[in-house]
């Protein structure tokens, strides 16, 4: 089902980058709020000010690093789709590995390999979860049509009435 009138890929990069930034900023905000609250002197005013300061300084940093990860991952993913011409889970895993490697480039080749392994494994887990979810979601609708006969396009090849199945 083509729900999208345009090609998803180039626009997906911006989409993923923004989504990752939001996740990082909100998660970081909550985390830093609690941390700032606890690390402040006694008194509710002090604590609230401390947590607000922590949010203002740290949450954008976390959001920024998430956004970099998400944007780079999506860029490499779209490039691989364009190069291979096929949409596969392999694209995601390789993109995760390359993203991890590029983001650790400052720390030398050994760190790049380790970071690439971590990125690849993380993406493999996410892809596995995605596959599980889609399989479970599709088996929930048991209305499979009768499949005992071959589709009519094969025998008399110009038969136009053909029932679409899922």
């Amino acid at each position, binding site marked *: *089902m083509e*729900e999208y009138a345009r090609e*998803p890929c180039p626009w997906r990069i911006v989409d993923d980058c923004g989504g990752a930034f939001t996740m990082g900023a909100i998660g970081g905000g909550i985390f830093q709020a609690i941390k700032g609250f606890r690390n402040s002197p006694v008194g509710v005013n002090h604590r609230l000010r401390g947590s607000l300061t922590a949010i203002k300084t740290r949450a954008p940093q976390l959001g920024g690093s998430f956004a970099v990860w998400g944007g780079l991952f999506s860029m490499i993913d779209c490039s691989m789709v364009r190069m291979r*011409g096929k949409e596969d889970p*392999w694209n995601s895993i390789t993109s995760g590995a390359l993203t991890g490697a590029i983001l650790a480039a400052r720390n030398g080749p050994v760190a790049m390999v380790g970071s690439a392994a971590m990125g690849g494994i993380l993406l*493999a887990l996410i892809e596995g979860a995605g596959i599980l979810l889609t399989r479970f979601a599709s088996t929930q609708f048991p209305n499979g049509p009768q499949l005992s006969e071959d589709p009519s396009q094969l025998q008399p090849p*110009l038969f136009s009435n053909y029932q679409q199945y899922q």
Partner: protein
Amino acid sequence: MPGVLPRTLPASLGRGCLGRWLLATRGWALLGAGAVPCSCPRWRLRPPLLLRAARQSFGTQAGGLKAAKPGGDNKDVSVHRALNEETLVSAAQKVKEAGRDFTYFIVVLVGIGVTGGLFYVIFKELFSSSSPNKIYGDALEKCRSHPEIISVFGDSIKGYGEATRRGRRQHVSHIEYIKDGLKHMRLKFYIEGTESGKQGTVHVEVKENLETGRFEVRYIFVDVETYPRRTIVIEDNR
């Protein structure tokens, strides 16, 4: 209060385990056995008792330092005190710690189980020859090398499956069914060529071969979305 504390207080102890440090290296008999329990955070509730102990123990500090050898003897004293402290751990504490360890162990097991399950799913999807993704890949390769397809769609052919919410199109729609005791699978995916607007739907059916255990192709055909509708049969092994 801060002025009474000696300067030799290690900075790393911070505010956490000051009670235990005092117990270990000074006269812990001053406080009595159960006054300051082993878990350090409760020290915060008993500052008066510890202050008394601190002042009394620091009163003997000068004499103690002159009498003891630097370094070694203090270490022996700490270890001795620590050992003595351990025997005071009651059975209730041990049960609580065992319970906590057990909970952590269960959590770790669950985590490993879930991770292992996800890895198994992804390996089966990518590497097993009977996964829909593999069959889709093989069918796409056959489409790409078929001259009629190339003439209709152009040189570089893209393949994709169903679009999910985010716009990624990785899921290939497939159905498995059993007919005459053999497993069959039908797939459907879409191809698109460089020539604009030309889209096609590829239908693949594979049948399980009992001797080799792998799936072999029964038919592959492509529905081209032109007017009039055109069907290109790539392979027909029925």
